[in-house]
C-alpha cells in the first residue's frame, strides 16, 4: 500500500504537466507584457476632455425651411441619439456639378432646390483624434455624412465645418 502511495506521488508531476505549466506561465507573461505595453502607450486618441462644439451641417434638397427653428433639438437617424441644438441656419440655393462639354471640366449649376446650412451646438468628448457627441458617441468630422431629424423634419448631408479649438 505504501508503494502505491509513492507511485501516485511520483506521478503527480509528469513531463506533460510541466509543459502545461510552462505554456500557462508563458501565456500569462505574454498577457501581462501586452497589458503593460498597452498602458504605457495610450490609444492614439489621448486624454479625453469635455466641451461644447459648434459645427455646420448641410441638409440637401431641403424644401421645408418653415419647419426649421433656432433651438430645435436634432437626433441622429440611425442611433437616434442627440447630435445638438440648432443655433442658427440659412437656406441657400442647391448646387450640383455638371460636365462642361466646352472645357472638359465641370461647372456649378443651381437646381432650383435648396440646401439648409445649420449651425449646431453640442456637448462633446474631445480627444487628440476625435470629437464625438456625448449623447451617442457620434463622431463629428468635416466630410462625414450625417442624417438627422428635428421636430417635424428629416434631412441628410455632409458636415461642412467644425469650430477648431
Amino acid at each position, binding site marked *: 500500500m505504501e508503494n502505491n502511495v509513492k507511485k501516485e506521488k511520483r506521478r503527480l508531476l509528469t513531463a506533460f504537466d510541466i509543459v502545461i505549466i510552462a505554456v500557462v506561465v508563458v501565456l500569462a507573461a505574454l498577457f501581462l507584457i501586452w497589458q503593460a505595453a498597452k498602458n504605457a502607450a495610450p490609444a492614439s486618441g489621448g486624454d479625453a476632455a469635455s466641451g461644447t462644439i459648434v459645427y455646420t451641417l448641410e441638409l440637401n434638397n431641403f424644401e421645408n425651411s418653415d419647419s426649421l427653428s433656432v433651438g430645435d433639438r436634432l437626433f441622429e437617424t440611425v442611433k437616434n441619439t442627440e447630435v445638438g441644438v440648432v443655433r442658427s441656419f440659412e437656406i441657400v440655393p442647391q448646387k450640383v456639378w455638371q460636365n462642361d462639354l466646352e472645357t472638359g471640366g*465641370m461647372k456649378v449649376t443651381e437646381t432650383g432646390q435648396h440646401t439648409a446650412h445649420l449651425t449646431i451646438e453640442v456637448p462633446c468628448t474631445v480627444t487628440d483624434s476625435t470629437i464625438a457627441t456625448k449623447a451617442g458617441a457620434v463622431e463629428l468630422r468635416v466630410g462625414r455624412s450625417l442624417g438627422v431629424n428635428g421636430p417635424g423634419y428629416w434631412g441628410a448631408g455632409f458636415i461642412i*465645418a*467644425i469650430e477648431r479649438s
Partner: protein
Amino acid sequence: MKIIDKNGRLFGKVSVIDVIVVIVVILLAAGVYLRYFALETTAAVGQPSKPIEFSLKVSGVRQYTVDMLAVGDEVFSGGNMEKLGTITDISVGPAMQWGATVDGRTVYGEIEDKYDMVITVQGDGVISDGRFYVSRIQELGANQSASFFTKYSSFGGMVTEIKAL
C-alpha cells in the same frame, strides 16, 4: 481495442489530455513562427522605426475640406484608426479631370469650385525589404488609395510618394 480506454488514454498508451497539450504547443509554436519570421507584414512590427514622409493627393474636394486641414494636424488611418503622422505641408490647386468635349476631344479640364490638394505627412514607419509599414502593420505605397482622417476632417486620398527621411 478501444480508441480511448477507461483511463482516457488513446489506444491505451497516450493520454488524450497529453495529445491536446502537444497540439496546442505545436499551434503556438507555428503561430510565433508565422508572426515573427514568415509573414512580412507582422514580422516588420518588431523592427526599429525610422522617420518617413509620404504625400497624399486629395482630389475634387470643396472649400470646406480645404479649410479644415492644416499644417500640424495629425493624420490617422481610416482603416485601423492608428496615427500615421503629422501634416507638414499642404498645397491647393484647382481640381482637374480628364473629360470629353462636344467636338470629341479629351481634355484636362477644371472643375469649378473644387480643389485638388497635396498633403505632405511625416511620421515613423518600418521599412522592410523596400516596403513601408506605418502604424504597426499598415503598408503604404505609391498609388494606394485609402481613407484618412484628422481630428476635424475625413477624406479619401491617394499616396503619390513615400520615402525615408
